[in-house]
């Protein structure tokens, strides 16, 4: 590797050992840049959904309003679980920088468990709402609510499936520049979902409980 041109990307540059592992090969470093841009477009996607939700919030068409529907205990536990999972995800990255593979996997598993708790509460909230007739077909408000919150939830689901594949690769290959890059990308994705949730928590749930 070291005596050849790295990839399509020009000539090889000497590696600074203080730079984290995921930036050691230019190919991996490019992917990190690309992934940040991907998150940028995902942010625009969520912004559009938020804008639509805000327009739709009052359009209940005689159906249930946000004040009637939202359950404070449920969304509070959900929020705490997800925020805490961001912290444990950060610990996984920290252990990765220190080269402790098993600790990385351990913290990923904790993160996944918290993610599952979050998803469980969300799904049970949806099932409950549908049970009392608050379906996506009921009103513009509910359409926007389910799609905004559901898009976030499906992102979390993808994150869980994705990291499952990464755990298998960590077990097989250990921490290499490639697996380090993959875990790092997943971790910024996870933190991003946390940031989006903070907006859902304030814009949808807190505001929805007050107005």
């Amino acid at each position, binding site marked *: 590797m070291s005596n050849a041109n790295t*990839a399509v990307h020009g000539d090889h540059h000497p590696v600074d050992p203080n730079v984290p592992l995921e930036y050691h090969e230019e190919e991996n470093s490019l992917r990190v840049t690309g992934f940040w841009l991907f998150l940028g477009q995902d942010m625009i996607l969520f912004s559009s959904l938020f804008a*639509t939700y805000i327009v739709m919030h009052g359009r209940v*068409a005689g159906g249930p309003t946000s004040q009637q529907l939202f359950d404070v205990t449920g969304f509070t536990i959900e929020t705490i679980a997800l925020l805490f999972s961001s912290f444990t995800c950060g610990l996984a990255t920290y252990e990765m920088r220190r080269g402790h593979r098993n600790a990385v996997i351990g913290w990923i598993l904790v993160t996944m468990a918290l993610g599952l708790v979050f998803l469980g509460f969300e799904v049970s909230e949806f099932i409950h709402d549908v049970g009392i007739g608050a379906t996506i*077909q*009921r009103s513009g408000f509910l359409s926007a609510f389910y799609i905004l919150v559901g898009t976030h939830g499906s992102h979390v689901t993808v994150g869980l499936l994705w990291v499952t594949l990464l755990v298998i*690769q960590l077990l097989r290959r250990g921490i290499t520049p490639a697996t380090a890059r993959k875990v790092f990308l997943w971790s910024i994705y996870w933190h991003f979902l946390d940031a989006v949730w903070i907006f859902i928590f304030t814009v949808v749930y807190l505001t929805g409980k007050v107005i």
Partner: protein
Amino acid sequence: MHGVVNWAVHFFMLDEGPLIWLSDFLIICASLGIVAVLTKFRLWKWLWDEWLTTVDHKKIGIMYMIAAILMLFRGGTDGLLMRAQLAWPNMHFLSADHYDQIFTTHGTIMILFMAMPAIIGFFNVAVPLQIGCRDVAFPYLNAISFWLFFFAAMLFNLSFVVGGSPDGGWTSYPPYVENQFDPGPGENYYLVALSITGIGTIATGINFLVTILRMRAPGMTFMRMPMFTWSVFVTSVIILFAFPVLAVALALLLIDRDFGSHFFTVNGGGAPMQYVNLFWFWGHPEVYIVILPIFGLMSEVISTFSHKRIFGYSAMVVSMVAIAILSFVTWVHHFFTMGAGPGVNSFFGVSTMAIAIPTGVKVFNWIFTMHKGRLEFTTAMLWSLGVIPNFLIGGLTGVMLAVPPADYQYHNSYFLIAHFHYTLIGGTVFGVFSGLYYWWPKMFGVLLNEKLGRWHFWTFMVGFNICFFPQFFLGFMGMTRRMYTYPAGYGWGVVNLISTIGAFLMGVAFIIFVYNILWSARYGERDTTGDPWDGRTLEWATTSPAPHYNFAIIPTVKGRDAWWLMKQNGESINGPKGVPFRPIHMPNNSGRPFIMSALFFILGAGFVFQWWILAIVGFVGVLICMAQRSFEYDDSHYIPVEEIEQTEAAAGRL
């Protein structure tokens, strides 16, 4: 049994008359012909190995261009059908339903399946070569982008003969396109196909942003980049910010239609105007996505054939960035008639007019580039120069439309139709032809014939103006868009007839172009030097077509117009003699982008017809492909030094 036959007849639209039968016949003939040729000349393996699995930006660029030309034919045929229908009062060549479908597919195909792939094709053909690198940042993703576009285009075109075309216009405004008023698969085709190609476009935007940000040759600072690369950079930023909004608008409308939600319905608390806002928040930047790269390539063409460096490089860059920013704050001018009030309408009127300023800067810079230049009127140059007067008319009528009170008169009239065709044909299509004549030798190693090129240009230029200039007057005379026929006695008949004649002249020009391609492939002048135009940027420093790895040694850039400088100083692209080659690391070909996009097609078909099993099969297939990719570690190879030496020796660069 009878029921099944009835269903099939309706599903395959055999009860819709001769236009569909003819299309069916032509599609079957063309498909059989392709299969026969591939089998007879044993080309299946070649097709798979060289094209369907390629991750090489040059080949992907060629495939984009071919697809764009095919879609120009499809969209152009739609246009001619419409012009035939409107040629005279009280015509009933097409029924109202068919006319609605055809103007919808015309607009959608021309913007998303013709203009977009043509633009992105040029990204692929030129950018990596211009910045001196060996491929885009993510070659595998690049292949996915292309195949998603390709299968989306196939899905969209299928609607003509299976299930029925969309008929809500290329903007697909609710509430009309909601299930309540417009049932059937037609609008679903539109929503699904655009969503799929949109994913590919977002990936392209990210890909070229990273490529340009991170992979420029040493010495190529931002302010030394070729103008086309600058335009691609700015365009990619617009793509990144605009296309997700379209994705949301389309998805919400599809959810309304497939699952009965109430985003844009008239009842149940829906807000139809929310769709219109989301759509144009993408839609207005979109028109800059298809024009800014044209501005970039015109800058290249005009500077090359004036044999001068571009006038006002920094002003060109600043004006492009200004256009990009302004493009996001003008979307309401598409619906001043919504009645948002004088404050809002004034803001969007003024922001729209403001775009004329940076655009004017660019026009003057092109003219000053030519001033005292050694002008060479090649076909590529003619097409670029053709943009200036045509786009000027398009732009100035745009400023007229930007005045809200006046817009209440022009809105949705033929004045508007003429205006945006002057920008999209007079700008984008002319520019695409300019780029094709300019980069054809780089793509294929053959020059297009100049004499035929001139015929092509002048026939098109004359036909285009005959077709669309009268439509400004039709607008003043009260003719609105999307009307399928009109009574006699309004004085519209003769004007429409003139317009139709112009449209068919453009059709003739297209035939001349296709003939030129075929003639040149056989008899055209071969480009043996790699630099047929005495070019200025790095793509002309390598062979035509460029070797697989583009540059044996990554060049070092010492200023703007890097290749021109090297030629002035008598330098070789491979640097000083005797620098040893090293093995080059390149990505492997992969069949997965093709297969995964085919699965997207299946997923999409499931959503079009609400066949959920099909949708689930497609979706699971896509997930499996992505998981497989995650486990793929061995996805690249090294080109050995001997092979590089052989290639470079054959190119006379040793």
